[in-house]
């Protein structure tokens, strides 16, 4: 029995336990006693209101902001107990598409996209192979040597997808990934997410539009809504993780 439990726990990539946060701004997603467990290969879609900004929530998930209450663990290691070096290593396994601009302005696009991988000594050949593979799949224009300030917003957004997905992440955080893009551009992203989930990468997708939620995702997708600081599972039930289909096996 305990072996089964341990095996199941090993699957958990991210766990939020009774997490509450102070309001960083009036638009930030509020969190009050939120519990959430995301396992390998799972897709969790969190539906936000038009004005809600997920940036602070994502930063809490990444251990960049401390919740006022509760605990956030990544791969069974709570951010609180990890030392600073561990924290940076842990974050290097999280890909994130930011809601809004998120570029180092004095680096060009190639340097920005490959920064995480290169900083953590990801093998160059493998990195190039992943860039080629995912660029094709995500339909991302070839990487340019322009600085982000000179690249149009829709191209930048797709470069953000690529930056998040390369370098073997274990968790992907997508904050409104379709922002500034036409709805028809979603197909390659959905296809890529389906593929990367097969590699056991967990995905949290913050969305504000219904068409993103109704895409054809493979496997199980859990939908949540943020209401008064609680994450309510779509259908009106409590946000606390109910036994997942894979758990019951």
């Amino acid at each position: 029995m305990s072996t089964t439990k341990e095996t199941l726990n090993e699957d958990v990539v991210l766990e939020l336990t009774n997490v509450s946060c102070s309001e960083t701004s009036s638009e930030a997603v509020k969190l009050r006693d939120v519990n959430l467990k995301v396992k390998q290969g799972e897709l969790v879609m969190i539906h936000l209101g038009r004005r809600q900004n997920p940036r602070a929530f994502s930063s809490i998930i990444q251990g960049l902001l401390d919740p006022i209450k509760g605990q956030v663990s990544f791969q069974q290691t709570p951010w609180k107990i990890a030392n600073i070096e561990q924290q940076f290593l842990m974050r290097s396994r999280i890909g994130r598409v930011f809601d809004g601009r998120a570029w180092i302005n004095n680096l060009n696009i190639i340097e920005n996209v490959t920064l995480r991988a290169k900083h953590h000594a990801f093998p160059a050949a493998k990195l190039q192979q992943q860039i080629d593979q995912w660029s094709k799949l995500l339909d991302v224009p070839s990487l340019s040597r322009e600085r982000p300030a000179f690249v149009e917003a829709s191209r930048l957004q797709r470069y953000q997808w690529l930056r998040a997905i390369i370098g073997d992440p274990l968790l992907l955080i997508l904050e409104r990934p379709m922002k500034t893009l036409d709805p028809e551009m979603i197909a390659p992203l959905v296809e890529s997410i389906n593929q990367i989930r097969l590699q056991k990468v967990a995905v949290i997708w913050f969305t504000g539009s219904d068409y993103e939620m109704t895409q054809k995702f493979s496997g199980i997708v859990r939908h949540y809504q943020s209401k008064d600081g609680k994450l309510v599972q779509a259908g009106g039930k409590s946000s606390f993780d109910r036994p997942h289909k894979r758990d019951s096996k």
Partner: protein
Amino acid sequence: MPSTHQINDRNRWTGALVRGTQSVRHAFALLFDFIGEQAISRFEGVSSILAIMVATFQLAIRPASWSESVRTVFSRQLLFTGADAVSVSLRIGAAVGVLIIVQAALWIDALGVTNELIEPILWRGIVRELAPLLACLVVIGRSGIAISTELATMVVSGEIEVLDSQGVDPMTYLVMPRILAFVVSVFGLAVIIATTMLVTGFMIGQIMGVIRTPWSDFLGGAIRQFSSLDLVFFVPKTTIAGAFAGVICCRDAMSVRGTMSDVPRVTARSGIRALTAVFAVSAVLSVLIYGRFLVFKVL
């Protein structure tokens, strides 16, 4: 027996005296409070600068810190702070070399001493004091304020969060390579400035008739002035002063809070702080190494 009027008068005086004493006490309390706060904040400032220096050193000697991205930042910073500043250092070195030889000639005439005093004046003035200071001024003026502006802008525009979120430590990626580039550049530029000043001093001295020996003799004479103390002084003065300047520029920029409009205020302040620190470090090192402060024997 005192009258009621006298008692009232006395009470008024006593009350005024008590109030006066309380005001003086309050003023002293405020003064000590202010002095204490200033002392604590200065101590905190210096200790945080020293802590950043130690952290930079620890990170620099760890091979794992030198990822490809960090090496790129270091080489770019070295190019900008060191290599790009060579021409301005040559110009400043040449100009100050001329000033020194002219002043030396004037003093020789005024004091009626022999021309042999030129070599020690040039050597000691240049190597011990002027070249390291000028190199620091060039580096702070060209790069210190630029680094401060760049980092402060990154902080207020949320770029530090972007780095953090990718598992890139801003201390390793942004601060450490910049401080090291500062140290290496100040040392290298100080050598270039000292050499330029000596060469220009010799050339102008010859034209003015102050120096009548050939270059080889002049150089030999200057080298004979060299003592081990000069080396002990030159290396720490350039590296420690450079490190202080680099740390102050980075620290002030990284601690900026607010919006883009706060950046110029912070960068101007950090430039002045860096300059002050360079002069203070030079003075302390002079006292420690030569036992002198200006012309006064201290140790």
